[in-house]
């Protein structure tokens, strides 16, 4: 007798059986291949405004998505009513729609030898906290109240006034069930607990400054409930008294909280959709050394208990630990089954799961990184701007502080950083080792030399 495996989460057997029936119905009515994704989530949020309960939200969602392969043609469909009657009518309409498209021989399901076999119960990633099941509305309200520091703001106010403190506590459970007509069956279940606060303060002249801080964890015990509000207030107050700085070619240190802004364009440029559309500055660079030899970005998708871990991608392809950029060399494009067939390249995974910049340079904290760097601009936030995906040129508004001899001097405003990503990442000087555990991407504070910053 097969051992009953422990499961948790939101999806019941009845709902998963409905997904299986959708697959079989589609196969029986004209589809040759089918992939079904069933998502269900529940979220409760208690929002606070100036220390008082301001908003309560309860959300329960279910969504059924279908990828249909019909006579060499392909379409995607989704609905949130999953009774047999509703789904069957929807599937018939969907199949008729697909039949009207042009054939696309590159469309296919992933080969079964590439798909995940070890995501059976949904609990393998160890991201589900059973404590979630014991949390009621009263406990949520208590945590939301505890998260606010508005009542003791006078202890925090030094030369400024807190005029608004807005934040929220939320928790959620997410359940994903993925099947296809090649025998794929995967499940992923996770809980998430979050606190986020935004504070607005005024200086003695009435000028407003805002700050934001947040924390999240898959387990409630790891959530910093009371630390976010004071940090948001401190961050707002730290911006009082900004000065203009004429800028120039300078060192730039980017806090870990916002450093992903500079990593995401690299990851996007490695996506096969961008490559195939000739819309990537890393087209035809696979295997080449493009960046500083100090830059290594790894994908660590299977770290048990770590935020963002996932055993399979949206096609069900198994994830693996792998280098993305290794010692400056482009090691991997993200190529799904479709793009693999279209480009004639071996498939990998749809995208990175938990990209991590590997620390180097011996600094542990951002403060140590500032001392090592000496002088420059510490970037704590990006404000607008964009990058050109074809050329890698970028220009972003920044906010942060001038630092000299490793010490922060004063805040700056209305500054922009301009450059090209290939040049920027070739000027990577050092990193800290302070990536935030609440973020799926593990990006520490980064120090670059010779960056064009203007004010």
């Amino acid at each position, binding site marked *: 007798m097969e051992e009953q495996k422990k499961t948790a989460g939101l999806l019941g057997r009845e709902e998963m059986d409905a997904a299986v029936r959708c697959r079989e119905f589609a196969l029986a009515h004209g589809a040759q291949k089918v992939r079904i994704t069933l998502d269900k989530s529940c979220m409760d949020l208690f929002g606070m405004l100036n220390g008082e309960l*301001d908003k309560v939200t*309860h959300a329960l969602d279910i969504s059924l998505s279908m990828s249909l392969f019909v006579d060499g043609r392909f379409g995607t469909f989704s609905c*949130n009513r999953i009774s047999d009657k509703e789904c069957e009518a929807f599937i018939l309409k969907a199949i008729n729609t697909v039949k009207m498209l042009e054939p696309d021989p590159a469309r296919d399901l992933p080969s079964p030898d590439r798909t995940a076999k070890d995501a059976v119960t949904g609990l393998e990633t160890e991201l589900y906290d059973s404590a979630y099941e014991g949390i009621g509305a009263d406990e949520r309200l208590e945590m939301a109240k505890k998260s606010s520091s508005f009542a003791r703001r006078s202890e925090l106010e030094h030369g400024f006034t807190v005029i608004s403190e807005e934040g929220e506590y939320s928790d959620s459970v997410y359940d994903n069930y993925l099947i296809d007509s090649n025998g794929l069956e995967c499940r992923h279940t996770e809980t998430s607990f979050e606190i986020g606060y935004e504070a607005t303060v005024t200086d003695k002249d009435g000028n407003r400054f805002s700050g934001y801080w947040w924390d999240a964890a898959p387990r409630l015990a790891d959530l910093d409930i009371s630390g976010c509000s004071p940090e948001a207030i401190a961050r707002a107050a730290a911006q009082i008294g900004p000065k203009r700085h004429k800028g120039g070619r300078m060192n730039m240190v980017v806090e870990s909280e916002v450093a992903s802004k500079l990593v995401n364009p690299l990851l996007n440029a490695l996506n096969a959709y961008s490559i195939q559309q000739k*819309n990537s500055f890393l087209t035809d660079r696979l295997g080449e050394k493009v960046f500083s030899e100090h830059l290594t970005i790894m994908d660590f998708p299977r770290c048990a208990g770590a935020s963002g871990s996932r055993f399979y991608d949206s096609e069900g392809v198994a994830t693996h630990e792998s280098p993305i950029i290794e010692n400056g060399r482009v090691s991997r494009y993200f190529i799904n089954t479709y793009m693999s067939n279209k480009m004639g390249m071996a498939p990998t995974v749809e995208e990175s799961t938990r990209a991590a910049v590997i620390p180097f340079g011996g600094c542990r904290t951002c403060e140590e990184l500032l001392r090592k760097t000496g002088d420059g601009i510490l970037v704590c936030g990006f404000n607008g701007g964009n990058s*050109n995906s074809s050329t890698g040129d970028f220009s972003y508004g920044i906010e942060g502080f001038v630092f000299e001899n490793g010490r922060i001097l004063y805040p700056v405003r209305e500054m922009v950083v301009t450059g090209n990503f290939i040049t920027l990442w070739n000027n990577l000087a050092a990193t800290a080792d302070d990536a935030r555990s609440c973020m799926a991407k593990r990006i520490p504070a980064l120090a670059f030399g010779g960056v064009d910053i203007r004010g």
Partner: protein
Amino acid sequence: MIYPKEYYLDIFQVTERELQRLVGEGLLRGGDFSDLFFENTAFGNLVLRDGEVTSGGLHSDFGVGIRVLKGEKTGYAYSESTGLAEMTEAAKAASAIACGASAGPGKDFDAVKIMRAVHDKADNFVLSEANGRRPVKKSFRGSPNPAADRYGMSTLWQNVPAEDFLPFLLKTDAAVRAKDSRIIKLTAMLSWQVTDVLMYNSLEELKYDTRPMGSVTVSAVFSSGGTVENRSVSRSYRTGAEMLDDRLVAELAEKIVSGIDARFDARRPDGGRMPVVMGAGASGILLHEAMGHAFEADFNRKGQSVFSDCMGRKICGESISIIDDGTIKGNRGALNFDDEGVPGQKTFMVENGVLTSYLHDRISARYYGVTPTGNGRRESFRYNPIPRMRATYMEGGDATRESIIASVKKGIYVDEFSNGQVKIGEGDFTFYVKDGFLIENGRLTAPVKDINIIGNGPQALADIIAVGNDPLIDEGAWTCGKEQNVPVSCGIPTVLVKSLTVGGE
């Protein structure tokens, strides 16, 4: 488009008596306002890539959001089923805002009696400073259906088979490619949606509406002399499938190649502080981001906006009037009713340089003691409504575009921005210039690209020293992402800001 009431009651499988009961349930534990928002949305999309339409899909979304207010506090829950039991559970969850965390068990009650008792209570009146301290009712009744229909739809999207859309996409592909041989990749996407909405609230108002939206986006990658550039253009309207005509094909083709020669030649200019001329139309996104958000009443009610203490004050030149408008027929931001059942309307935020109105939902209107401005919007039934813009634009002035450019000795002319961001408290903004030119001695000279314009919203508004006579509302598929995504549009005449920071080499 507005169908008879029975159409909506049938889609959502509810009776008017059940609507009353659900709203009553929301009020039962002490709430002072409650409303229901039923939504049935059908989406469709087709994608042309590499010359063939090989990808497409259909999607549907269905559910009801239930909101309970207690003062300015909000309780919100939703159900993806319109079964009475599921909706009642959602109403109980939303009503928790009124009684603390745990809503107790339900009981029998007379829903209409509760609604009327709540709304007739004396404390439902406020003394409004804006109304000569006369008592103003906290809750405001909107106009009954039928309202003005601002999105006529002669060809219903959902009734057109996908194959009938293919010729439009293929024709667009051919028309664009015929314009420029440097195009190496082209993607064209057609998306449409039709949303049936039914709203009911504790003022016993019943509103219903069917909202169409069609959008076409064309993206092209150009290659010349080893250099690659990309451009994207979109058009979006609240109308039916009749929008897919030859005129639109020609417009998209013309627009996407327009200025591409300059883009290949464009360079980053020297940075610094200088005058900036914003071209008419799409650069109105700066108005939306840098000023419009700061006029949204929720940010002001919470003291977070840089304009929180500025109502009735002169904040810019007398030649400037800024409007948020839900009444432009077929416009992406047009609304017969907002998502709280308040009629769509035209709101002057700044009139002749004076801040005259914030953008209100029902909560902020009660707080300020004014009439809601029809800006209570939401992404879907999954979200509670908050103040949001519709079509935001500046009225035209007296100056010609040519005279404005001629008045600048050295500066930047911006055709189009992208990726703008603003800090509401400080008013600081940064915008990426997609296309533009240097202005030297009163003439447009070298093309520029990939730079940022940075400044401060109130300061930039006060620094506008010329307003063109060429107001233009852009018809691109603009989407505003303040907590939730909603369709908007924006516009501006040619304007001259006397000094902004330009980030360059």
